[in-house]
């Protein structure tokens, strides 16, 4: 009798337990990525892999909605002064760190001073360059306390800018501008990024981090919008082998993956249909001539070679249409910017080759005295295929192209030290949606100006744009600059625009394609 009652009781208890787990079953999102983040310290990152993780952990003054549009984040509102140089942010009264303490203006002052401080050696310190004195502090000419930021009271944060900066709000969604908890960083200066020690103000908090294995985030109950966060836990799972990642996706071990093996794109499209999401992304794949070296100092020659490259072939045959042929340095997708296109964008490839041949003959290159050119690129199957394609495209013009590939560090080491080369591969992915982010790469003396291009008019137009208060006039200045530097002088040879390539399970809702490829888990749900 007792046994029978016990059995019934146990059975009942088991059913109850099952039902309650079903009702409260944790919704876990498995997000695959190609690599681990470099750091979970928002001020010490430099790759794109940490962007979404840090967006989940932290909320900047401004945040991004499901379409990567700027919306209020830690600040509920802001006021811009009429000259566009002073921003006053009102922080949310209900903004809290994950330990329950309030997010204050002092936290932002501390954090921004930390970013620009030379001792932090933040790679993204330039994200705060528009702030008064920021660059001088990073260059150790001034003290971090002299940064143009002020806590007027606990919830009012004031920023002084050197010049009106239309993309300033956009920059505030970038991880380098996030606040860290002053109290926590001062208490745990070395290990505040570790699970159990990290305090954050985003929709999620850090639960586990095993390098090369997984990063687990769980919902932050203190987050101001926690009621609308539907996913309980997120695992960020690094998968370096992209083919193996596709198998893991197929087996249901991953709900999404952000770095498709582009060489398998046609097969993947056939197999996964509209689970494959390819969309525009703010990045340009380009070649740069060493413009200080003969004969590459000749604009006509640079233009002829640029003209002869069949970009459609590169996009279609080499990249399986996961890249888009590019005829400008600034990719489309920047609101308000109508940049110039390369003159020969509308010409047929045959006409372009004829025009290029004519220039080469004029310059005295003949089959007996051919032009020799070496393409340098960093080791990668796709970069190699691009270089080989260009080599064969230039062959009919009588150009003898040789290829030289080196590993990434050697390649960029040489470019940054302005070593000797003819033409080299490089790329730029935008940090924020603004043409200036690209065009600065052709400015005299910039570290990334591998071509060593230098033109006074170009520099003057960029400087004029930087001081311009009217957004329309500013975009016009930038467009004029691109017309001189890129279209006329080929300071870079744009080849392809990048695109984002994700695979998303139909179970995942609230994932929208956008040019920044920004996807906070906050907006997602899983069936």
């Amino acid at each position, binding site marked *: 009798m007792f046994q029978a009652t016990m059995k019934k009781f146990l059975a009942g208890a088991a059913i109850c337990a099952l039902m309650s787990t079903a009702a409260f079953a944790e919704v876990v999102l498995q997000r695959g990525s190609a690599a681990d983040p470099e750091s979970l310290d928002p001020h010490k990152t430099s790759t794109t892999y940490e962007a979404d993780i840090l967006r989940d952990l932290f909320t900047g003054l401004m945040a991004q909605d499901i379409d990567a549009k700027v919306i209020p984040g830690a600040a509920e509102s802001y006021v811009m002064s009429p000259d566009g140089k002073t921003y006053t942010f009102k922080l949310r009264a209900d903004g809290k760190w994950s330990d329950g303490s309030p997010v204050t203006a002092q936290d932002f002052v501390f954090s921004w001073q930390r970013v620009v401080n030379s001792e932090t050696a933040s790679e993204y310190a330039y994200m705060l360059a528009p702030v008064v004195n920021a660059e001088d502090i*990073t260059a150790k000419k001034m003290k971090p306390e002299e940064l143009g930021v002020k806590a007027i009271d606990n919830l009012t944060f004031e920023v002084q800018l050197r010049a009106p900066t239309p993309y300033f709000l956009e920059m505030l969604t970038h991880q380098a501008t996030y606040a860290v908890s002053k109290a926590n960083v001062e208490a745990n200066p070395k290990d505040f990024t570790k699970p159990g020690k990290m305090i954050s103000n985003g929709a999620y908090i850090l639960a586990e981090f095993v*390098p090369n294995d997984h990063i687990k985030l769980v919902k932050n109950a203190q987050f101001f919008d926690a009621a609308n966060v539907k996913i309980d836990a997120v695992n960020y799972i690094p998968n*370096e082998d992209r083919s193996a990642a596709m198998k893991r996706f197929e087996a249901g*071990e991953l709900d999404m993956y952000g770095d498709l093996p582009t060489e398998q794109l046609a097969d993947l499209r056939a197999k996964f249909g509209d689970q494959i999401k390819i969309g525009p992304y703010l990045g340009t794949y380009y070649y740069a001539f060493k413009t200080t070296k003969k004969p590459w100092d000749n604009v006509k020659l640079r233009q002829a070679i640029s003209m002869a490259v069949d970009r459609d072939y590169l996009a279609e045959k080499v990249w399986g249409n996961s890249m888009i042929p590019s005829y400008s340095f600034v990719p489309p997708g920047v609101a308000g910017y109508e940049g110039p296109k390369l003159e020969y964008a509308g010409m047929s490839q045959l006409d372009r080759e004829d025009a290029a041949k004519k220039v080469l003959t004029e310059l005295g290159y003949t089959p007996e005295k051919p032009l020799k050119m070496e393409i340098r690129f960093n080791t990668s199957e796709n970069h190699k295929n691009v270089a080989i394609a260009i080599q064969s495209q230039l062959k009919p013009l009588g150009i003898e192209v040789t290829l030289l590939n080196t590993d990434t560090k050697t*390649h960029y*080491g040489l470019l*940054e030290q302005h070593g000797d080369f003819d033409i080299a591969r490089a790329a730029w992915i935008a940090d924020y949606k603004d043409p200036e982010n690209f065009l600065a790469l052709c400015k005299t003396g910039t570290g990334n100006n591998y071509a060593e291009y230098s033109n006074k008019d170009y520099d003057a137009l960029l400087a004029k744009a930087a001081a311009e208060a009217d957004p329309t006039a500013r975009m016009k200045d930038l467009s004029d600059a691109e017309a001189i530097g890129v279209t006329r002088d080929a300071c870079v040879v744009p080849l392809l625009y990048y695109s984002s390539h994700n695979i998303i399970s139909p179970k995942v809702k609230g994932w929208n394609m956008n040019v920044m490829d920004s996807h906070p888990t906050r907006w997602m749900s899983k069936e």
Partner: protein
Amino acid sequence: MLRYVLQRFLTAIPTLFIILALSFLLMRIAPGGPFNQEKGLNPIIKANLEKLYRLDQPIWNQFTDYVWNLLHGDFGPSYNLPDFTVAEILSNGLKVSILLGLVALTCALVFGGILGIIAALNQNRSADYAVVATATAGSTIPTFVIAPLFQLIFALGLKWFPVGGWTGGGWKVMVGPVIVLMLPQLAIVARLMRGAMIESLRAHHIRTARAMGLSDFSIIVRHALRSALLPIVSYAGPAAAALVTGSIIVETIFAIPGIGRYFVDAALNRDYTLVMGTVVVIAVFTIVFNLIVDLLYAVLDPRVRYD
């Protein structure tokens, strides 16, 4: 014996030092540095980073600092994973790699050994041919073919195991990596065992044992196997050092957080301290396993004595 072990440890110190100095130098000769990347850095920021990690110091000072810190158990910070010290990265990875490596090695020795004995006892018969053919196939098909095949058949097709991942490391996630790590070793062990066993069975003392009427089991296990183990033991030492320090292919394909991938990634990233850390780890393991092999020799071979 103890004196011998001590002596070996003492000679290991200059060996390690030379390895360290050479690796340090070679690493610095390689062009490019840890902070050269696609998204090029502003020279001021790069200088700040180099100052932070003391890379602005003369190379000799950097080397003496490194050795001094190493003597205090400090492997330094990782430049490319600044949230972790090199010691943390290595100890996290080693836990996984040692576990996988030892399981794979044990399986390879046991199964390879058994297969080798079976082949030797059936020399030039079908069982022998089967073992030799399997062993040849096992040692010639590369890991990067076997691993995706395993995933296709047993994970995606039969759904017996997960495709990849570790997360704590249950037995299910270990099956694939262990099999892939084990197969080439098993093939080599089986072939070594077969050859050594055939030779050993022809030895005079085995004939004597047979003449004395000992059972087959006793002859094979107690007498023939002991001398046949010598080549296996000398092979197992370096093989163990290689297995417990991970495999970049297996770790990348199965998404396993072992130490193997750091050997390549750290060098490509010019993460100097992490490269040095991996060099120390592999050097120490090689030295220790070679010592173990030499000691096992003394146990197995009555002709070897270290006193």
